[in-house]
């Protein structure tokens, strides 16, 4: 744990406070000194009042602050309207601060501060600072407003049925998208900043009386312990707070869908939104949550269950299919039906490579295609499909470099891999697939079984924020109730409780008496009483 101790060691010297003094020019100079060479910072000094004798200063970062708002509601009020308004109160000069705060600045969010360091943070996060002469405080005007992407449909996790709004890069928009789905005073959004230099905003979302307090505490403690210069993406947070960095499996779910986040919060999980990224983390994650898709709950239960089982099968197939091909063709041809075995032998007759090399070449080519497809700009992206399909598939087979069966195996593997709703789970399987192929190549099915056993041992051991990763298959807290949402998705009327393995509060979700509704509203055959 030495690595982590060093990593989480807190810098124990907080930056000393620089108080705002009454001398206006001094304050301004201090800020200018700290933000020296920051050419995007605008300093606007102006005079207010009929006699033009009150000195004001407005500081903001261009591009981050909403210029329209500053012009129309602050500068205009202070400069134009104040001049025309008669100064009736004689001691106005003494009360100027109150007047400005309560009567002149027409914005919703105002704060007062007395520390230049805080003022600097505010400026850099997009707020504007209003400084007054002869006043030892400064006003923070909420003017955050920068160009941002709209609420678009997310590129990943598409669904046929269901909302298509997705998170964007602005924390506030993201919290709003979740808040729209949870109008509950118990829904909490706790904000904090992480990163010595980046000061990235992070919001921890939970529903107070549902969430498991231990998990929440763990999340907060681990995020508090982070002491890093900058957070670029939620992946940083994920990697810094996950339980085991050695594991190939993702221990947190990430999503771009607000409905997924809201559903997780209702189950008693915790979500972490990080500014500057549309990917929101949900914790704790289990293998099962990574295979569930939001659409499972929107569709009727039978089709949803069937598709979910298909997904389970696809995940297993994508892991073991190439290694099974290697093991069976190289070691156990007796396991194939006779006709198939002879066909396989015949189709491999001129292939110059052993099955392992053949499979390795094809799988590596597939990974290359995938990687190249991501990098290429959209219109050219389809070229890769043609090149991959034709050149690698057709031509390789015709040239006799690989057998047609291998192409089928690789194609099926790729399709099965893509069917996983969780990209991070699918890519960890990609890695394990190669390990498995290597073992299949030199130990046969025996090696495949060993890798499967090793993976299972690891999975049984793995925990995500204290919750066993294989819940509800393992773990004392899981109950048979939890299996209503594993291989099948039970009809909603029977999913009355939140997942038990999370120890969530307020465990009943649904009060629904089937008998009552059916007898009150007819017997389902359209006959009314």
């Amino acid at each position: 744990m030495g690595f982590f101790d060093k990593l989480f060691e807190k810098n124990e010297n907080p930056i000393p406070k620089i108080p705002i003094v009454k001398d206006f020019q001094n304050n301004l100079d201090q800020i200018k000194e700290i933000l020296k060479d920051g050419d995007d910072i605008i300093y606007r000094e102006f005079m207010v009042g009929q006699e033009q004798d009150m000195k004001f200063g407005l500081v903001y970062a261009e591009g981050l602050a909403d210029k329209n708002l500053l012009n129309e509601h602050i500068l205009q009020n202070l400069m134009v309207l104040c001049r025309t308004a008669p100064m009736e109160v004689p001691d106005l000069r003494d009360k100027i601060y109150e007047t400005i705060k309560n009567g002149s600045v027409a914005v919703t969010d105002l704060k007062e501060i007395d520390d230049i360091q805080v003022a600097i943070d505010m400026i850099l996060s997009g707020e504007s600072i209003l400084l007054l002469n002869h006043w030892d405080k400064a006003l923070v005007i909420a003017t955050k407003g920068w160009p941002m992407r709209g609420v678009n449909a997310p590129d990943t996790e598409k669904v046929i049925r269901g909302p298509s709004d997705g998170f964007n890069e602005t924390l506030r928009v993201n919290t709003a998208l979740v808040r729209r789905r949870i109008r509950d005073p118990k829904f909490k959004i706790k904000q904090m900043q992480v990163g010595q230099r980046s000061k990235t905003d992070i919001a921890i979302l939970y529903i107070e009386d549902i969430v498991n307090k231990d998990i929440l505490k763990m999340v907060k403690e681990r995020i508090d312990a982070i002491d890093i210069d900058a957070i670029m993406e939620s992946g940083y947070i994920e990697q810094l707070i996950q339980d085991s960095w050695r594991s190939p499996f993702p221990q947190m779910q990430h999503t771009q869908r607000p409905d997924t986040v809201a559903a997780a919060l209702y189950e008693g999980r915790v979500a972490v939104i990080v500014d500057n990224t549309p990917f929101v983390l949900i914790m704790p994650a289990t293998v099962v949550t990574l295979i569930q898709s939001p659409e499972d709950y929107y569709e009727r239960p039978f089709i949803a269950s069937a598709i979910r089982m298909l997904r389970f099968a696809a995940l297993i197939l994508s892991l073991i299919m190439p290694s099974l091909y290697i093991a069976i063709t190289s070691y156990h041809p007796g396991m194939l039906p006779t006709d198939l075995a002879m066909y396989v032998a015949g189709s491999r007759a001129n292939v110059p490579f052993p099955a392992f090399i053949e499979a390795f070449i094809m799988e590596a080519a597939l990974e290359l295609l995938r990687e190249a497809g991501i990098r290429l700009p959209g219109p050219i992206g389809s070229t890769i499909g043609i090149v991959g399909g034709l050149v690698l598939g057709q031509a390789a087979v015709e040239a006799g470099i690989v057998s047609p069966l291998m192409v089928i195996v690789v194609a099926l593997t790729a399709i099965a891999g893509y069917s996983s709703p969780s990209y991070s789970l699918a890519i960890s399987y990609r890695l394990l697939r190669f390990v498995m192929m290597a073992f299949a190549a030199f130990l046969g099915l025996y090696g495949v079984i060993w890798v499967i056993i090793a993976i299972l041992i690891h999975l049984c051991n793995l925990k995500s924020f204290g919750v066993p990763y294989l819940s509800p298959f393992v773990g004392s807290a899981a109950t048979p109730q939890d299996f209503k949402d594993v291989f099948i998705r039970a009809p909603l009327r029977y999913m009355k409780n939140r997942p038990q393995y999370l120890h969530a509060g307020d465990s009943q979700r649904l009060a629904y008496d089937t008998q009552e509704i059916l007898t009150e509203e007819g017997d389902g055959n359209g006959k009314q009483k």
Partner: protein
Amino acid sequence: MPRWRKISILLLSCILLTGCWDKVEIEQRAFVSAMGIDKFDPQEEQEKDGAEEETEPEQISRNRYIVTYRYPNTSVIAGKGEGEPVFKATSIGRTITDINSEVATKLGGNLFFGHLKLIVIGNSLAEDEQLMREVFDYIERNAMIGRKIHYMIASGKAKDLLEVKLARQPVAGLFVRDIIEQNMRTSQIADADIGYILRALHESRAAITPQLEGSEDELKVAGAAVLKDYKKIGWLGELETGAIMFMMDKVKNTEITVRVNELFIPVMIYNSRTAVKVEVRDGEIYAVFDIENEGELSQHLFELIGDTYEDEYLRDVAKAVSEKIKNQVEDTFIRSQKEFNADLIQINEELRKHEPDLWDEVRDNWEEVYPKVKVEANVETDIRRIGTTR
């Protein structure tokens, strides 16, 4: 060395030193689909080859078997190559294992028996107890050879049968499998796989094996050979084979033609159950076969109206069928006693299981007791369907 390292080395060697070390790519294997084993007859070889080097006296004493392998040209099956669909290889040697490795070396590949479908034993070898026991041992030991494969005795030489150029299926082994499966409906083929034969030989040292006959471009399974003390001692005809199948409860579909009121009426038996019991009555051992059949009239006479609706008539037909089966079963059983003294149905096992005290008395002289066992067949037949009749 720290303890954990010792333990992990131990564990790793457990994992890594075991496993499958016989890696051979699938295309480098020769999938032997049929294997013919003949007795090496020096005289015959001499006549055929003239005074070739193979006939040196030293050579003669060493060679005991001729083994013929038939394996498919997989390229042709996959539609990629041309040429003969089936390859053959023949070699002579002292033991089957010797010949296997010799042929494997000659082919530059590996003989793979995991998909073996058929073993044919030449007639002359089948009559040699010593060689037959060696062959059975070879088959039972070989882990790759499945227990569901067919083991047949050729009417002549196995080599000739495997060299028959079949008009239909290219792979001889598969072809025989098809014949067997098709012919299940006429129970006159002995439904006996190597698993049954080995078990039967262990239990009563007697078994039946199907007989394989061949012509120009055809193979035919007909009748059965009787094995006693591991060697062939005689043949059973098709009807008798059918009767044995009834006794062993292996009949699935069969056709029995009876003569009722001057009409030949074929009855298709599609459901047959046999319960074998051993009973002791008045100090005599009875083998009782309770056979229940269900069948349908598959042919009658055009424009003969009325008869088939009458219970009485149908009962007569059923009775005739029962009678016929009863006679066949009892005759065949008696023949197995009188002619072969071979306990083909493993009555001794029934005795051991259900009459252990009696078995203790007779086990040592079962050979003498078996011919005295009385047989009783109780056959009941129901005609369930009469077909389309006006």
